[in-house]
């Protein structure tokens, strides 16, 4: 009897914190969602509705502004530019990082530690801080107003993080595998291409996810490098659009929502890789 009571007690006591937990989390959830929901509402209002009631639920929703943004050639051009820059940066980062990490993690040579430390320098110098020096160098190399300039700089500043992640992963692959492939007549490149890359897909996907999110969202490099409107990426274009149409908030909301959709879709697809990459190694001891 008394034993039973104790169990009921424990059961009861344990339920209260769980409810409190959900209350706390729901409050945070609402705070996170408010800015997103308000701009979502704004994007389906007419200019007049927005002026009279900017943050109420739009009934019925009016799709004119979204449709107008979707009809703009410049919007699609920005999507295209951002896709190009992000795709090239992602591929470049994965390729270059995997090659250098292979050499550092799987081959013996003098100065290996030095090369590793050198390639992780970028962790200390984020591109925002180094932007003027980088811009001056890009100008000398005729990379200003050129999407290749953005791609190369984005890639260069993603190398450090990618090298750290891939170096750790490559080290964990048993050396017997490498020896066996050499005995079977594989070259170092053959081992890298046929075996290592295939075994390392999760780690490569992680590096790709982080590079993609960085490149898609970065404003700084396109802002200083790209003058011509037809080269603008989405963040730069969104900023200019806001500057130009700042008073037409319904329109700006529509633009912002549409420019956020690709990122959100991308996020839902690569969430797992992104999270494992961002938490990689930060969980030791």
């Amino acid at each position: 009897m008394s034993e039973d009571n104790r169990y009921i007690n424990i059961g009861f006591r344990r339920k209260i914190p769980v409810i409190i937990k959900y209350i706390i989390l729901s409050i945070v959830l609402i705070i996170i969602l408010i800015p997103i929901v308000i701009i979502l509402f704004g994007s389906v209002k007419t200019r007049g509705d927005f002026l009279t009631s900017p943050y109420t639920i739009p009934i019925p929703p009016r799709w004119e502004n979204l449709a107008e943004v979707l009809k703009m050639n410049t919007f699609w051009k920005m999507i295209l530019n951002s896709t190009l820059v992000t795709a090239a940066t992602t591929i470049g980062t994965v390729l270059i990082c995997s090659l250098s990490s292979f050499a550092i993690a799987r081959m013996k040579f003098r100065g290996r530690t030095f090369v590793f430390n050198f390639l992780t320098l970028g962790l200390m110098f984020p591109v925002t801080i180094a932007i003027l020096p980088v811009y001056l160098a890009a100008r000398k190399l005729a990379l200003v107003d050129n999407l290749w300039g953005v791609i190369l700089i984005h890639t260069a500043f993603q190398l450090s993080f990618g090298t750290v992640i891939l170096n750790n992963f490559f080290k964990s692959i048993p050396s017997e595998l490498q020896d066996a492939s050499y005995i079977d007549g594989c070259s170092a490149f053959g081992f890298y291409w046929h075996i290592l890359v295939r075994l390392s897909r999760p780690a490569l996907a992680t590096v790709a996810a982080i590079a993609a999110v960085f490149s898609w969202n970065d404003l700084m490099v396109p802002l200083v490098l790209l003058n011509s409107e037809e080269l603008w990426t989405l963040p730069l274009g969104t900023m200019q659009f806001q500057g130009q149409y700042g008073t037409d908030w319904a329109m700006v909301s529509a633009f912002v929502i549409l420019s956020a959709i690709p990122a959100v879709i991308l996020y839902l697809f690569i969430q797992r890789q992104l999270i494992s990459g961002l938490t990689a190694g930060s969980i030791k001891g």
Partner: protein
Amino acid sequence: MKAKRDDDISRTEPRESRYIKLKDRLTITWFLLPAIALFLIFLVYPIIQSIYYSLFDWKGFGPAVDFIGLGHYIRILTDKIFLKAIGNNLIIVVLSLAIQLPIALMLALVVGRKLRGRGFFRTVFFMPYILSEVITAIMWMFLYNADPDRGFINAIITLIPGLEARAWLGELNLVLPAIFVVLTWKYFGFHMLIYMAGLQNIPTEVEEAALIDGANKRQLITHVTLPLLGGTIRTSVYLSVLGSLQVFALVWIMTKGGPVNASELMSTYMYRFSFIRFELGYGSAVAIVMLIIALIFSLTYRRILARPDYLA
């Protein structure tokens, strides 16, 4: 037969290994070349070049000829606005460490390991991190609008008797806290994610053992969970400080560093002198000062508080 084969191997081995070594060296060179080249072109060379330019009064056209030595550096370190910018960066760092990270840690502990809906909360809380700073800035400019008929925050506040609408981004002593709220909104999910991964890595046996030994919930967290999270917390602090040095787009779009430099950061200061006024010599010197600050921070942090784990 067997002996002969052994013989063969011992005879061919030296030659073959020398061949492999040469081939390996070529492979290593080719494998490292793209990464090292990109780094030399876009990191090392630019920094060295900027150190050179920082010694000249140079507007960005033609060769740099007006040598002024350390003049720019003296001007930077005596410029009240730059010192104000350093101060603002520091305020953001302190607020992040004192408010943002504890919130993230607390929420990670609340979600814990087994709560139902854990994945859902993580997905939503992390969402602001993947929206660009540009989108974040525009969204919050709507919310912060000074007119209570337009801005959601003022609309809520004016519902409470005795409180009146404020120009959140326009008042000298409100603008920095207002920006910090946006930074917290955007980045706490990232730190929460790191802490959740760290918690996941603590063996449940350790905590169970403490509970069996009679520890209560609070003791468990302060004496077992937090010490075991030490490495994770160090990493999160490192990333947070380095991250607050990088804040730019958010502030530039919302306030341009204003009003009257009240939200000026080193990054907006550097951007204004470099790309608006085109004082590239002076801008170079500012960039070098910022790089030195980042370098000093990274090196001391690594030396004193041990390496952030993600470099280990």
